[in-house]
């Protein structure tokens, strides 16, 4: 199979997954008992007549039979139109556009910090001359995964903003204000990366080719950088792709705790007001991101592992 053919088939699979994700989220969200129109307009402030309600419903299309709604939602989604937010009364695409950058920045930096943190832990544990330090470091990831993200955020605020007064609570600069949220996000994300990395390093160290390299006179240092690390990194790549969901969940919580604007806050508000259109757009957007990330990871693999390069290289 040629490379372009492989690429096409993977792309096709990704599109099918996305379509299925759309259908699933549509089914889940459109079968809800109360609808957003009722929630928003049945309140005392509006006191609309049933005719007016019906009118609004017709504008939002929530009166049509399910299949017709599904098809029209599918076609408009395909053209990049996610409809209107009932709560905010603006286009969902506009809401997303306003909120996507801050979240992207937070998640990206949080992920980067997690990678740095986990690699630091793995290196420390490998090069540590003391076995007790090594044991403490290998236990840290287990602790990290057990900490509720929202609680960690609050504890960090308490520690660094109120006790140590290092980070101002009110009006921190745009970047200073990101320090604690990034730390909050990095801790739980770093745990699985560090765990897999450490386990793989230990695992690769026991493989015969490492003993052979040592028998050639290579020092532990040499063996680590030239033989162990690259082999240990391969499975970490897969985990990184799978961690997107965790990252997004972390971002939702971090934005809520730290009062930052972004997709997370948008999602939280959408659930509270049953703003289905917004929520479905967020679900689709994240599914698309997940699928893309994993597609990229799959395509990166053959670059790092020659055993998977069979097709590309002539024998």
């Amino acid at each position, binding site marked *: 199979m040629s490379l372009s053919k492989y690429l096409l088939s993977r792309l096709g699979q990704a599109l*099918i*997954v*996305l379509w*299925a*994700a759309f259908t*699933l*989220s549509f089914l*889940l*969200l459109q*079968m*809800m*008992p109360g609808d957003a129109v009722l929630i928003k307009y049945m309140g005392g402030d509006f006191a609309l007549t049933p005719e007016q309600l019906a009118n609004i419903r017709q504008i939002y299309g929530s009166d049509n039979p399910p299949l017709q709604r599904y098809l029209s939602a599918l076609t408009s989604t395909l053209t990049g139109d996610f409809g209107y937010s009932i709560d905010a009364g603006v286009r969902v695409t506009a809401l997303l556009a306003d909120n996507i950058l801050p979240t992207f920045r937070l998640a990206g930096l949080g992920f980067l910090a997690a990678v740095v943190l986990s690699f630091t832990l793995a290196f420390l544990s490998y090069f540590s001359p003391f076995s007790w330090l090594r044991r403490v470091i290998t236990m840290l990831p*287990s*602790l990290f*995964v*057990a*900490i*509720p*993200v*929202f*609680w960690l955020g*609050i*504890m960090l*605020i*308490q520690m660094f903003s*109120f006790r140590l007064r290092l980070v101002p609570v009110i009006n921190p600069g745009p970047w200073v204000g990101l320090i604690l949220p990034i730390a909050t996000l990095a801790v739980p994300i770093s745990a699985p990366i560090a765990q897999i990395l450490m386990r793989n390093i230990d695992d690769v160290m026991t493989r015969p080719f490492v003993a052979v390299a040592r028998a050639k006179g290579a020092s532990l240092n040499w063996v680590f950088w030239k033989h162990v690390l690259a082999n240990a990194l391969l499975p970490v790549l897969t985990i990184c792709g*799978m961690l*997107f*969901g*965790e990252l*997004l*969940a972390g971002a*939702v*919580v971090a934005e*809520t705790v730290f009062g930052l604007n972004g997709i997370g806050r948008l*999602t*939280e508000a959408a*659930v*509270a007001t*049953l703003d*289905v259109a917004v*929520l479905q757009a*967020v*679900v689709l957007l*994240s*599914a698309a991101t*997940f*699928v893309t990330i994993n597609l990229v990871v799959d395509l990166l693999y053959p670059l790092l592992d020659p055993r998977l390069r069979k097709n590309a290289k002539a024998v």
Partner: protein
Amino acid sequence: MGVAEEPRTGVSAGSRTAEWWRPVLEQIKGIGPATWLSYAVLILAVLWALFPGLFTAYDAITGTPGQQLRAPSLAHFFGTDALGRDVFSRVVHGSVHSLSGAFVATAVGLVVGTALGLLSGSVGGVVDEIVMRIVDVLLSIPGLLFALSIIILLGFGTLNASIAVGAAAIAAFARLMRSEVIRVRSSDYVEAAIGSGGKLSSVLWRHVLPNSLTSVVAFSALQFGSAILQLSTLSFLGYGAPPPTPEWGLLVAEGRNYVATAWWLTAAPGLVVVIVVLAANQVSKSIRGRA
């Protein structure tokens, strides 16, 4: 262990009953102190949930006037909140919500996911293909968003949040069970069992199920801890139990307003969550290690 261990009646009962428990005893001997401690923590948490009155005399819902925002002391281990309620008592009474919620969530994921995985792994072919594609789709939606979508469908509340968290875990359970079934099925001993005249059903029952379950049980313990975390997150965001339920995530959310003055309101319930989740993860690790 234990699945293949049950003593059977009728066969030279004397020697058999005298020896069947020996491997079990060896298993217990092999458990380290960290795992003992973890079991103790989980048992204590369950006791809190079942008999909260044994551990605390304070009421979890109505506070004592004049006792507001007291720091931790011997009278109030975890201090008191703005309404004069004893925080330790609220944590103890809250365990029933967190634990039963996590239990429901794990059970939903375990039952549905394992059934799907078993079906997929043992039938194979088109069924396998379809189930795995569904799993792919479920995995492509971030767990929290999937849970939120289900909460929108079912409405807010502890039970609904538990079901939502459980549903989000179905895909992972299904995948694990399938890979375990496939691993065991391709083993020499399963082929040997078929080769000695075993019917497919009896081979599945005698060999495939017991040998694939260990990882699934270990994963369930892990998932139990993770469900406590996710449920507390959902409560914190306000989609779980309504106030004044002393659910652990909600306790942290309520304490948040006093973060500058009364640190114990957030610190104490959060620490309890960390310890219980750590214990569940340690138990999971020890089950996996002995497989």
